[in-house]
């Protein structure tokens, strides 16, 4: 990885919920930020700069919330910036913050991402009819469900594989007290009998809508080395974008995702992600996106993603656990969800994941986010040990 070393030295998040009516937006982001500062053993005064991210302003109807949140996040008299790349924003915000440290600009950066979806309705926010645009409105699931059908046809996948992911991630979430959904009784039958929303997607194949925030403190090597707590070192980070529409675009297995993974693996010295990583926290908002992204991220050959899922390899006790925290299928504060993936990957290599800690073998984990019509990708690999010089 180019630049100076960057360490994750503090992680904090809210308990994700359908509606967190007890706090304001400022209260929500402060809950996560204070937990991250405490974890790092720092105070507001120690922070050099703040980087905040969230998805579209239409979700809360607060235009440019970073302005209103500057003093809530201790940014008075300090640089503050806001990042936005749709659903991948939590990942890209983490990367922008980390690059401020990698570039040697700052030594202690607080980064926060949030969404308070209960203030409006995400389906409305994602589907506002615009003049001159084609009028058919089918919501986010209506955009992705046809791509899932295409994947099933292309990979000749049996129809139950998506449901396996829906069960696996909800059972994993039972070990994560911060997860939004806790469904101890979920099984394959419950998923198969849940409402068919966007055939082939059933209700329990889709993520919830959550209020929540995630925060991290990122530090330079000099600062991180002096702190008593564990550090997740950034071994690689990358972002890629592509247009939502172009001729013969591979919408199921987008090139931007493949290229982004290749870049981040090269930086982190990952040759075989299944063997070289201990776990992955990947943005899977619809169950079928696990096998789809297994292929996109090179964990198996194209067409084999569903076989890997079906084999149990991605379960918490499998050889390459995916989303041991319960993932986006169990908590989805959209703007924060990407940073939750990045932060959960960091917690695993810091051995701070509590009851959902995976055993560390290589000491490396992947955090991943995507957004828009699969057009924005952001990823990082974090490690328990400093990257080899």
């Amino acid at each position, binding site marked *: 990885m180019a630049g100076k070393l960057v360490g994750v030295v503090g992680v904090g998040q809210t308990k994700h919920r359908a509606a967190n009516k007890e706090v*304001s937006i400022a209260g929500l982001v402060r809950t996560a930020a204070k937990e991250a500062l405490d974890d790092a053993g720092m105070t507001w005064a120690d922070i050099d700069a703040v980087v905040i991210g969230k998805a579209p302003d239409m979700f809360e109807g607060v235009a440019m919330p970073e302005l209103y949140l500057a003093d809530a996040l201790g940014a008075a008299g300090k640089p503050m910036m806001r990042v936005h790349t749709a659903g991948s924003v939590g990942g890209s915000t983490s990367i922008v913050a980390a690059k401020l440290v990698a570039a040697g600009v700052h030594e202690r950066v607080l980064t926060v991402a949030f969404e308070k979806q209960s203030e409006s309705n995400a389906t409305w926010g994602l589907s506002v009819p615009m003049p001159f645009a084609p009028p058919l409105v089918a*919501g986010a699931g209506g955009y992705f469900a046809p791509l899932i059908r295409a994947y099933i046809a292309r990979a000749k996948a049996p129809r139950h594989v998506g449901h396996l992911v829906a069960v696996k991630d909800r059972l994993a979430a039972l070990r994560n007290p911060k997860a939004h959904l806790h469904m101890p009784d979920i099984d394959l039958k419950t998923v198969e009998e849940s409402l068919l929303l966007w055939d082939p997607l059933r209700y329990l194949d889709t993520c919830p809508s959550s209020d929540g925030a995630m925060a991290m403190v990122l530090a330079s090597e000099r600062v991180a080395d002096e702190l008593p707590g564990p550090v997740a070192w950034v071994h690689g980070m990358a972002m890629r974008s592509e247009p939502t529409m172009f001729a013969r675009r591979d919408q199921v297995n987008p090139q931007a995702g493949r290229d982004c993974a290749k870049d981040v693996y090269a930086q982190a010295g990952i040759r075989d992600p299944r063997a070289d990583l201990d776990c992955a926290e990947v943005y899977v908002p619809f169950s079928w996106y696990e096998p789809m992204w297994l292929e996109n991220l090179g964990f198996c050959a194209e067409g084999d993603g569903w076989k890997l899922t079906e084999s149990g390899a991605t379960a918490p006790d499998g050889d390459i656990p995916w989303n041991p925290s319960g993932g986006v299928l169990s908590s989805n504060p959209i703007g924060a969800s990407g940073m939750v993936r990045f932060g959960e990957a960091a917690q695993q290599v810091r051995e701070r994941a509590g009851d959902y800690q995976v055993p560390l073998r290589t000491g490396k984990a992947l955090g991943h986010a995507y957004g828009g019509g699969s057009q924005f990708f952001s990823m990082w690999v974090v490690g328990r040990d400093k990257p080899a010089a």
Partner: protein
Amino acid sequence: MAETFTAHHVLEYPGGYTRSVGPVIGRFLTALRDGRIEGVRLADGRVLVPPTEYDPVTSQDVAPEGDHWVTLGPAGRVETWTWVREPRPGKHPLDRPFAFALIRPDGADTAMLHAVDCGSPDAITVGMRVAPRWRAERRGHVTDIEAWVPLADGEEPQPAPLRVPAEDEGPVTGIVSPVRLEYDVTAGEATTRYLRGLAEGRIVGARAPSSDDVYAASRGTDPRTGEPTTVEVEVRDTGVVTTFCVVNIPGLSELAPEIPYVSAQILLDGADNTFFGLIRGIPVDEVRMGLRVRAKWADELKPDHTSIEWWEPTGEPDAPYEHYKDYL
């Protein structure tokens, strides 16, 4: 070149955003409902109104309970002001000309933005004494103070009219925040040409200059390279369903049809991109990848998307997977 289309657009979340305010602002709003202005004394001794959940300088928490809470004013002084000559109905707090002013209630070290109802810009000065004119019907909102009014020397502020609390009334925890954006959207030249084509029953595409790719509808550029798509190509109104989903959720928008319906990606004959279309004229459980479809044109053609009502089967044999596999 003919004029490009422009449309007026209103963006508004139905019913307004439901904003939870947290315990500190909630207490301030609850006090307003009671006819009282409350602020908080910060660690450095300054009194902040309206209060925030955190000290704006140190970012330390401000507790929602405790003896750092102080009742202020209700009279105060104008710190600065600007005159609103032409109030807009529903958008300004008063329906007659007024001042927006920063008002520092007695006992506070900060000022709050509010309206001063004083008739004329000649009747307001910096440093002028003002007092709140409370509404009788208060709901825990900053507009529980209808406006501030000038206070003569020695005059006492009017108390808030008595208000009977609603049964089971708790502290204020949220407000509804209506947000409305109105603006004009311009279609751009390429989209305007496409829409004009629809009014003539034609689907106008455009060829990318450095490849043979045809886009229908084109946004005016090749999305791969950014080069302008200047060569127009007419595309047929038939094509193939590459993939689809069956929507079983009612009321996704006013435009969505009765459920269940099929939303499909369609690859037109002669085009190289797919777009979403509604499939009708076939039971939803018989729709399949590869289905050949044709545009169902409206009886009355107009230069907008209503000219193609939906897509329906042509009756031709299905396209083989090989034909469209690179378009998924």
